[in-house]
């Protein structure tokens, strides 16, 4: 089964698509059949970053039943072993995908036959985005060292956490849990999954164990992108520390990727940054992030929700 890496977080422009395309190139460079999927349907641009300015097919061909297999929407890129499902010109916003369609898409992604699949999920926190995020336990969060972007990452992580809890309960049960958490921990608890977990521990020990097992298996990662020389280099480490300490979720700081004007240059010239500027600090850091992510290709347990 393919190793799936959902990538999200930050705000628009933090570099999710840039990092996704770079990681895609690095994985393909290891000789692995790699597929990048653009699920940031409202703001799709991954195709341009992997050298396919005018993709002939896209994700919505599958949703609109123009093709029957998701595999038929895959296009080649100029890079060996790297393939793309584009989100270009999609009339859909993933947030509005009807339930049936979403399940169909999730299942189809899990059945794709690639060694590595990277999902560019964009910045949203709609339920649908969260469900794609929960396709695997290996979510990668990208943020820049700005408060607005960091705030969005925290919001996304909490939403993913709540979404996973939600799978265990019915709508009315979940509502009751929310009310109970607020009752017990005050108004501030409404956006705190860790408070809800305390309630679940007491009232639903069985589900609590299931969730706890699952959360222990998560291996989230954080990448700080566009770090400037003046920024605090240990920001990412500290972010991971408060997520672990105060949310009880394991998350690993995977590295900083420095800001470099050459990124902009490469994108404007429509060439691969890693190929064009391989000796920059930023390229070295991207390779280091890639190694950390792809190297210990440990076993991945798929979550069979769908």
């Amino acid at each position, binding site marked *: 089964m393919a190793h799936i890496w959902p990538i999200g977080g930050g705000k628009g422009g933090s570099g999710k698509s840039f990092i996704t395309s770079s990681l895609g190139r690095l994985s393909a460079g290891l000789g692995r059949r790699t597929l990048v999927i653009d699920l940031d349907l409202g703001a799709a641009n991954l195709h341009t970053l992997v050298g396919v300015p005018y993709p002939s097919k896209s994700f919505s061909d599958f949703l609109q039943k123009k093709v029957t297999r998701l595999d038929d929407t895959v296009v080649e890129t100029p890079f060996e072993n790297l393939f793309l499902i584009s989100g270009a010109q999609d009339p859909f916003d993933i947030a509005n995908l009807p339930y049936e369609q979403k399940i169909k898409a999730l299942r189809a992604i899990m059945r794709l036959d690639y060694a590595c699949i990277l999902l560019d999920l964009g910045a949203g926190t709609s339920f649908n985005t969260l469900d794609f995020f929960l396709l695997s336990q290996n979510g990668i969060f990208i943020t820049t*060292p700005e*408060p607005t972007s*960091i*705030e969005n990452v*925290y*919001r996304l992580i909490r939403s993913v956490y709540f979404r996973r809890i939600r799978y265990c309960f019915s709508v009315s049960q979940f509502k009751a849990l929310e009310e109970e958490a607020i009752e017990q921990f005050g108004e*501030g608890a409404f956006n705190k999954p*860790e408070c809800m*977990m*305390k309630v679940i*521990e007491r009232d639903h020990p069985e589900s*609590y164990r299931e969730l*706890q097992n699952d959360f222990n298996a998560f291996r989230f990662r954080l990448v700080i992108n566009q770090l400037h020389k003046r920024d*605090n*280099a*240990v*920001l990412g*480490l*500290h*972010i991971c*520390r*408060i997520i672990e*300490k*105060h949310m*009880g979720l394991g998350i*690993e*700081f995977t590295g*900083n990727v420095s800001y470099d004007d050459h990124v902009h240059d490469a994108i404007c010239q429509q060439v691969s940054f890693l190929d064009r500027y391989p000796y920059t*600090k930023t390229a*070295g850091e991207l*390779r*280091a992030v890639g*190694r*950390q992510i792809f*190297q210990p290709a440990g076993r991945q347990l798929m979550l069979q929700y769908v």
Partner: protein
Amino acid sequence: MRKSFAELNYYEMLDIRPDAAAFEIRQAYDAALQIYQPGSLVSHSFFTDAERREILSLVEKAYRTLIQDQLRKAYDDELVRRGELDAVRETAPAVKKPVGIFSISRGRGRQPAGPNPESLKNRILQSARIRELTGRPALSGEDLKQIREELDVTLEEISQATKIRQDHLINIEEDCFARLPAAVFLKGFVKSYLKYLCLKPAEELAARYMETFARLSQSQRAEENK
């Protein structure tokens, strides 16, 4: 459920080992302030004002207790009674290098298998890039980072093996001079780092790093004062 912050013991709150020396406690306290202070980028939007106040007062209490030998001793005894510490410290807190006399019982260890020194030595011999970087008269943190990345070793690994906190290692590699520990510690850290990577001669390279560090940090300060 993992414990909430208020339920952690003081060592866990500050993220230090129970045998931490005084300077490590001070540094951990500074790091905690950096994380939890109002206006901190790290915890932006993460806590309500009330939560932040509570955490800061706990951090303060943890620091005040651990930094005073008498209070710390009493607190350690209490932890041993609660079964949270494995053994009793027999010597006063180490002044220089901390030794692992006891550890928190519920430590969750994800110990990576370290690199094989033989394969590291081989890679060092074969890498023209490393030869170039170690052959220059100067050696900066950024050079160290390049060497480490060339050797495919992660910072996490070095941190676990050398017990040097990862934030120090990052600041060393990023040449963030203002955030680095005092020179005596810094040199020791860099030497351990070099040794872990099997780079020789560690003593000489560490000295070269310190010279480079002195020069670069001075010119950086001059720049800032302009």
